């Protein structure tokens, strides 16, 4: 099942062409990893999928991004509705300076979701494998948690609004190895229900967690295939060089 279909996407920052002619199909309930050196455009591409680039001055998008067949850049698209369906976890854990409970309840509150708030909070925290660690201190400041816990809190906060897709922008780059492992295990359980797109500069991580891998190089998508094939028999020379550490 196809969730996202991107067709000939170009992205400009002012005069600079940051992404050129990207076409890709992202599957439902699979993990798609985007790898490549810094500045290759993978984060920019990720932010195109929920239109987080809209707030950047001088940014311009060409091409089509279809979510379940609907172009999200079509005129009249409700960006708020889109972001409700396509959630995002950021590079650095960014919980609000509020209690753990309020952090999770934020989304359901602003979106006016139906249902018992306490139940939503518990389900989301369980979904992010954080419930047992925080269930006795829901009223405490979220910034008192460790970075790894904060990042799982951010994931819980994202799934509290019941999105269809979760975008992760280098979610483990600020975390230690154990916290990283916890997030990776969490992703495996999340993929039962959500499509996940993860940007990572850690190639081991991409090969460990993902089903599909896209390789970005200088703003172009050089290769996109099943993860195993990208890492064992890449079609392009540059991909092989990057994966083996000779380029990038």
């Amino acid at each position, binding site marked *: 099942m196809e969730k996202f279909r991107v067709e000939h996407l170009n992205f400009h920052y002012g005069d600079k062409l940051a992404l050129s002619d990207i076409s890709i199909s992202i599957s439902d309930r699979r993990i798609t990893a985007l790898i490549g050196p810094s500045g290759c455009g993978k984060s920019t591409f990720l932010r195109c999928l*929920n239109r*987080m680039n809209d*707030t950047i001055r001088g940014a311009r998008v060409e091409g089509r991004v279809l979510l379940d067949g609907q172009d999200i850049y079509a005129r009249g698209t409700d960006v*708020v*509705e*889109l*972001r*409700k369906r396509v*959630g*995002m976890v*950021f590079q*650095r854990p*960014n*919980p*609000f*300076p*509020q209690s753990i409970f309020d952090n999770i309840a*934020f*989304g359901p*509150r*602003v*979106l006016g979701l139906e249902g018992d708030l306490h139940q939503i909070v518990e389900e989301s925290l369980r979904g992010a494998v954080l419930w047992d660690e925080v269930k006795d201190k829901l009223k405490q400041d979220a910034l008192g948690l460790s970075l790894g816990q904060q990042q799982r809190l*951010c994931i819980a*906060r*994202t799934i509290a*609004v019941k999105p269809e897709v979760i975008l992760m922008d280098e979610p483990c780059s600020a975390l230690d190895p154990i916290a990283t492992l916890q997030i990776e295990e969490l992703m495996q359980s999340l993929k039962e229900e959500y499509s996940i797109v993860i940007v990572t500069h850690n190639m081991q991580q991409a090969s460990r967690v993902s089903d599909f891998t896209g390789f970005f190089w200088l703003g172009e998508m050089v290769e996109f295939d099943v993860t195993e094939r990208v890492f064992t028999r890449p079609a392009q020379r540059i991909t092989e060089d990057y994966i083996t550490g000779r380029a990038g």
Partner: protein
Amino acid sequence: MGARHLSLNWASSLSSKIAGLVPGRKGKPPPPAGRSYVEFLIESSIRVLGFSTIGFVLLIFFFLLREGLPIFREVAPANLFGTRWYPTFDLFGTLPLIIGSAYVTVASIAIALPLGVATAVFIREVAPHWTREVLKPLIEVLAGIPSVVLGFFGMHVLAPLVRTTMDVPTGLTAFTGAVLLAYMALPTIISVAEDAIDTVPRSYRDAALAMGATHWQTIWRVVVPAARSGIATAVMLGMGRAIGETMAVMMVTGNAARMPISLNSLFMPVRTMTATVAAEMGEVANGSVHYHSLFGIGIILFILTFLINIVAATAIFKKRHRGGLR
């Protein structure tokens, strides 16, 4: 007082910058004799100036204590904190004045807080770039309008307006004073609140937007709460300015030393501590009980503003301590 607090901070940071510019003697080859003499002269004159500023402040403080403290011996506490201020009849009840000041100050903050925060949010979060560039200096100009000019405006424009629209016997009321004070506190509140909003990390906004919150929800539920301690500081500084303000208040509040305790006293004359001191200081005999009582009011006022500034400063300190305004 609030403005002085700010400028003191500013001055101390400036002087530390200047101190950084003056080349230190440590670890440098000994300079030629003539230059080191000049340097010694500059350094010691800076030191003398710095210490003398502290000295003057202390002297003023001791003068205030010397002239004001006797009142607490000369007049019985029951009289001093009574409800009637008639110095000619030996009645020195400061309560109506204290409550009058508090009343006008609180009312002015009640007006200035929503306006100031809304303006700060508008400038920082909503206004297009060019509007921001125009508004910011304009607001700083607002802070520079002399209070007597505002008082004049209050007497001739605001007071008649209040009288006719509220249908009260006089337009010189607590409300009129509160509006003027709100106007005077606004620049402080706006610029400090705006700084606080500016330091809210971008990542908070991103997180809220990425969850499907609208721009308005992001501002109201994430940005403003995250900046609340900075906004509280803004209010305290605005309050410090309002409670110490004299001229504009004296011109528009009517100066009747009555207890403003009923609900409708918002639209009746009131008298503040500052206005009392300013109005009566010229007429008292030096060294009399009345004279001491005015300085006594000065001490009470000093303690109040000092407390307010302390609260504001601890809030600032806490934020620095935790790394950034939150």
